[in-house]
């Protein structure tokens, strides 16, 4: 986790760690494979099983779609991490420059 440098003028934001989003697809897949492998012998159970299976397949699709939506809603991942860090640095520089400029012109003696 990168450490935020504390510059004297820039107010430091207390770093609260953001918990990663939980996306669990594998359990659903396992479930489907298990129920397929169960393969009961008598017909009624088979029908019930295949019905359940198709339900689970639908659930898998729903899970995948939901995870895609969650990913799309996440903030801050428009760029790769390196790009983001570069932007952060340039933003800091911009802020420092502007503060310097203001300080310079406020203190100038005519």
């Amino acid at each position, binding site marked *: 986790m990168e450490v935020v440098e504390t510059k004297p003028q820039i107010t430091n934001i207390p770093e609260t760690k953001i918990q990663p989003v939980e996306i669990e697809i594998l359990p659903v897949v396992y479930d489907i*494979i298990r129920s397929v492998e169960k393969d009961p012998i008598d017909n009624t159970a088979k029908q019930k099983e295949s019905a359940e299976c198709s339900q689970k397949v639908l659930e898998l699709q729903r899970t995948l779609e939901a995870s895609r939506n969650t990913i799309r809603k*996440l903030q801050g991942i428009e760029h790769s*991490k390196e790009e*983001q860090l570069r932007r952060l640095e340039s933003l800091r520089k911009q802020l420092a420059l502007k503060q310097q400029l*203001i300080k310079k012109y*406020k203190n100038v003696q005519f």
Partner: protein
Amino acid sequence: MSSYHLSTRERLLAIVNDIEIVAKELIENTIAPKAQKMSSADHAQLVELLVLKDKELKSTLQLAAEQAGIEKNMDALREQVRKQDEEINQLQKQLKEAEQILATSIFQARQKLASIAKANKRPVSSEELIKFAHRISASHAICAPLTWQQGDLRRPYPTDIEMRLGLLGKSDLNINGHNLQHPSSLNEMHRNASAVTGTAGGAGGEIPASAPNQFAWHPSGELHMSMGSGGGSVSLDTRAHKDASQDDVEVMSTESSSSSSSDSQ
């Protein structure tokens, strides 16, 4: 892997797609009849691939969480930058204002200095100025007398007769067809017309020789103007007129300004 230039979002979505594909493969393989099933090695590989993809998904989600934290910092920084921008704009406005005020002040100061220098080149004594001011305002040509009431025939401006008695009136009378009146008869005319003795002509004594406009105080208290070619002096009545001369004025003048003067009460 060539996906490092991609944004994290794209990577995550790609991983999810991959997981979907592999999972579908696995399930189809499980359902497929024995003849079409792939070898167990392949199956195992697929399973491994699926697990790998899941791990990759989790690590990328972790990365996304970190980036979200960085994004929060950046938002705060952007807010500070915006405040600085506002402050810079404000200072710029004030600087421009100050510059404008200073420029105006300097310009006006220069003008004042120039007029001071100009005045210093040709100084005039204050006594002389006061005398002239007194003379001009004595005939109520500037301001109505304090006791002025409605119906008072005096006017707070030089009346027609007074204008005719001036330099312009004297020099142009020949052109207009009126004859130049003899100075002495005028004196008599005004002496007859005026009833009030000079309260206005207060200043006694001669004007200093430096006055260019040939005014002179007569011992009687009237203001006289010396004529260049005609010789002698013409008296200028600085006292209140009476009705006769006023009626004369109203009848003779055809200019709108004079006629309006009689109307305005």
